């Protein structure tokens, strides 16, 4: 019988996360745990003017050249722009680019990127200086490409009508400097909202379209649709939102899960997604309106090829849903990709204190703002062990480099690593008993065995790693020099 996990994986010096079990062969006494991001205490960092309740869709990026955080987000009159030196205190500059309500004294970016933008400084030489910033905009029932040299002045790229699909479409670059990906994918991917018939309903689902130039896009195909587990979860999440006061109208017969959109980004050799799961709790025709009501939740997904998607961390929310009276207890959507700032992952998200139905039909009692939630580096999913020691054994690996570096948190516990041969026998001198046990908290701890970290003497045949964990969280490992 085939044993898929006996096949050797060549990882070179690519860091490995545990979001899926691609690299894991055996697991005993250890669980894969989703770590929800820690919300910043000063949230919401940016609120809207009175009467402006649009979605905080958009992008926050850190501009190395200007040493500036820059944000684009949906607002009244179009896409708004804000800047910040520390990512926490934001200013809304007067851009003078668009006339709105008789004045140009505003921060509106005409034809701006309301679904988020793709920042492509590395393509300056290939695609030209006018296409450093790109986005898709929904015009006349289709998505059209727009580009900008500076993120503020946008123009349409002449193109045939492209990606069809619903009124939501996130995009991503498949490559970036931090994650050069070997899979030979086209340079850009878009994720338009498609309808998929699951059970009784045609549901909002995630499609995929490819492009090599941001101009010509392949016909979208369905890549992720809600299933019966999402419907089961709808009962839980709706109950929670009722308690938090974020919804006041629910009709159990209508309960189900749908995917509003998915923000996708490359991270350490794979792709991660923040899927916005819309838990429908009422068809608004029941009160004479269109559309549906219900809360949502941001969950983590992962993929190796952007086609097959894994629902990571048991579908738990990556951003806590918020409780009674919280500004973000209702509708939430992340910006199109998080930022890696130092040894942290910063996830900017927009939120309201009401649900999708509330956005449609209620005009009062709403707050809307931009918040920040943080994870440690690689902190999405960890392998956790409690008081009793647990072990995780990897698939056979081929690596480059001469050191093993781990990202782990075990202030009151320990991590030890054994290096095994293909048959699972410890290699002499590199067993768990030889390993200098790590206790502490480090995003890059170099593993040593009897005070030596050098692995260059290891024979060239594939090895397995066996992690021994006690009261520990292991986030990633990587071979390096």
């Amino acid at each position, binding site marked *: 019988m085939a044993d*898929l996990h006996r096949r050797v994986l060549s990882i070179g010096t690519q860091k490995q996360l545990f979001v899926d079990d691609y690299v894991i062969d055996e697991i005993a006494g250890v669980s894969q745990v989703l770590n929800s991001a820690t919300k910043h205490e000063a949230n919401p960092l940016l609120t809207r003017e009175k009467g402006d309740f649009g979605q905080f869709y958009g992008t926050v990026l850190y501009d190395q050249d200007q040493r500036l955080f820059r944000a684009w987000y949906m607002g009244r009159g179009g896409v708004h722009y804000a800047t910040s030196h520390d990512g926490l205190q934001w200013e809304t500059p007067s851009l003078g680019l668009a006339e709105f309500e008789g004045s140009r004294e505003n921060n509106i970016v005409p034809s701006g990127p309301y679904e988020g933008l793709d920042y492509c400084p590395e393509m300056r030489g290939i695609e030209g200086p006018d296409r450093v910033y790109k986005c898709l905009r929904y015009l006349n029932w289709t998505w059209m490409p727009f580009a900008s040299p500076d993120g503020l002045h946008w123009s349409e790229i002449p193109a045939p009508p492209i990606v069809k699909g619903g009124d939501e479409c996130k995009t991503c670059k498949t490559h970036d400097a931090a994650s050069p990906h070997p899979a030979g994918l086209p340079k850009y991917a878009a994720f338009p909202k498609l309808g998929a018939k699951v059970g009784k309903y045609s549901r909002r689902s995630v499609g995929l379209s490819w492009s090599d130039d941001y101009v010509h896009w392949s016909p979208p195909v369905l890549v992720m649709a809600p299933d019966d587990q999402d419907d089961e979860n709808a009962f*839980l999440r709706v109950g929670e939102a009722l308690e938090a006061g974020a919804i006041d109208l629910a009709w159990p017969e209508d309960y189900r899960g749908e995917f509003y959109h998915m923000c996708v980004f490359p991270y350490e050799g794979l792709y991660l997604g923040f899927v916005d799961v819309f838990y429908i709790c009422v068809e608004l025709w029941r009160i004479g309106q269109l559309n549906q009501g219900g809360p949502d939740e941001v969950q983590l997904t992962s993929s190796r*090829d952007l086609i097959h998607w894994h629902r990571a961390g048991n579908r738990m929310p990556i951003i806590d849903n918020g409780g009674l009276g919280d500004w973000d207890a209702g509708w939430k959507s992340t910006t199109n990709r998080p930022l890696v700032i130092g040894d942290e992952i910063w996830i900017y998200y927009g939120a309201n204190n009401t649900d999708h139905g509330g956005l449609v039909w209620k005009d009062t009692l709403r707050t809307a703002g931009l918040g920040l939630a943080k994870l440690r580096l690689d902190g999405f999913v960890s392998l956790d062990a409690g008081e009793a020691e647990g072990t995780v054994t990897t698939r056979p690996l081929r690596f480059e480099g001469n050191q093993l570096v781990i990202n782990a948190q075990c202030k009151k516990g320990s991590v030890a690593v054994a290096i095994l041969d293909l048959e699972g026998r410890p290699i002499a001198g590199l067993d768990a008993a030889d390993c200098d046990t790590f206790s502490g908290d480090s995003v890059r701890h170099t593993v040593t065995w009897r005070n030596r970290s050098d692995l260059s003497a290891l024979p060239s045949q594939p090895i397995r790693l066996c992690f021994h964990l006690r009261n520990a969280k292991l986030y990633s490992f990587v071979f390096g020099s």
Partner: protein
Amino acid sequence: MDDRQERPRDIGLEKQTFVDNYIVASTAGVSRLVHPGQKHPDNPLLSAEREWETGFALEVLTAFYDEEIKLFRMWYAAGERVCYATSPDGFRWERPDLGLVEFRGSKANNIVQGLVGPTNGIVYSPEMVGSEFPERYYKSLRYEAEGWAVYYSGDGLTWTRREVNPVLKGTLVRGVCTTAKSSECFAKGVFYKQLPPPKYLAFPQLQVRVGRFERFCVGFSGCPMTFPDTFTAWTEPSLILAPDPLDDELAGERLADVMEMPLVSSPAEYRSEFSGLAGFRYAGAFAGFLWVLYVGGDGSQDGSAEVQLVSSRDLVHWQRTGDREAIIPRGTKGGWDAGRVHTSNYPFEVNNEIWAYYTGKRVGPAGDAHAAPQHTGIGLARWRADGFVSLEARDAEGTMTTKTLRFEGTDLAINAQCQEGTLAVEVLDREANPLVGFCRDECDAFSGDDLSHIVSWRGKSDLSALRGEPIRLRFHLKRAKLYSFVFADRSVA
């Protein structure tokens, strides 16, 4: 999260198999086995031997047992021609003189009229016999330049193209699209939200960029029963199955024994593609024969092909069974089916077995130079009832505990094989505490081989006191294979 929200599965009188973990909560010391079909010793049962078949690879389109006329019936393609054969036993096939199509001055042949290849399987709806549209008992879809065209027939032998076509535009890149009749008995089915699935299923071939390659992938399109039953209301196809990185990893291995073929020589190009899916109803769920192509040539489609099992509960989400072993493997080296195999559009049940006819080719490449007709044929693969997948324990006892379920009926019947072992069942409450009277020690352990063994506890099998209650079952297996279980209603019988 699983524990927090588990609501009982209402399985009623629906048979439960183990193609997926729909009913399985946990196992210990039990593994899932995918059983390859038993190939008939006389395979290939049909090869090109008539003049009008000469030079073509025979490809089975559809085969089934017709209860009405007590005959096995088969439609197969020989190039553009669609031919018809019958058999009293499914092994010895005859080519009746249909007298419909002239070939070299004679109508003494088994060529079907009005349906030409490349085409897909056909769908026969015996339940329509006697309805007001006798000319539509048989239906087929064919991919033509502008989209899908519908063909109707009253007897399966003379076909008429629907006047207005296409019924669905575009998306198909080639003419392979299997249609499968989804069975009529949906009333008790555990289908999503109790909604009957579409009556007809089609699995078109989609071309999708996966990794570095544009590849063949599988889409799904459904067609509901309409009045009249026109076979035209097909939904836009959705992508349901695409090869993933593990499939590409497998390609190297699966190509190893065909490496000597001159065209299969480029490891960098090794990849997997899905050239088709024969999807069908399988005990309350859906299963499918996935036609997996392992491609090795430089930009060509040369390689080997085998059939793997997949399953689904809602026709949108499909999962691969086990470790992607072949359920119809290629034959041994040099054999008539050593290179590529693919199936008819659906298997069928007969004599308490599952039968599937399949097309085999001796060599891998699709190139004409290799596909000499004498190197192809149509064979038969068979399984015991519910026999695609079993849960098995060897010498050490293992257990399988189900999720919380609610049943109808009075008795529990198991399909199991343990001539040299034992199988015992206990009934638990939802917290997994054994229920007095149905404990493991009280169960009359089963030894033997039975498709439908009624489980008893101290000589009593009646479970009607627990009907409608949330319970779990725990199976204790030792040197035993468990294929399925079902609650039966003996009060009706």
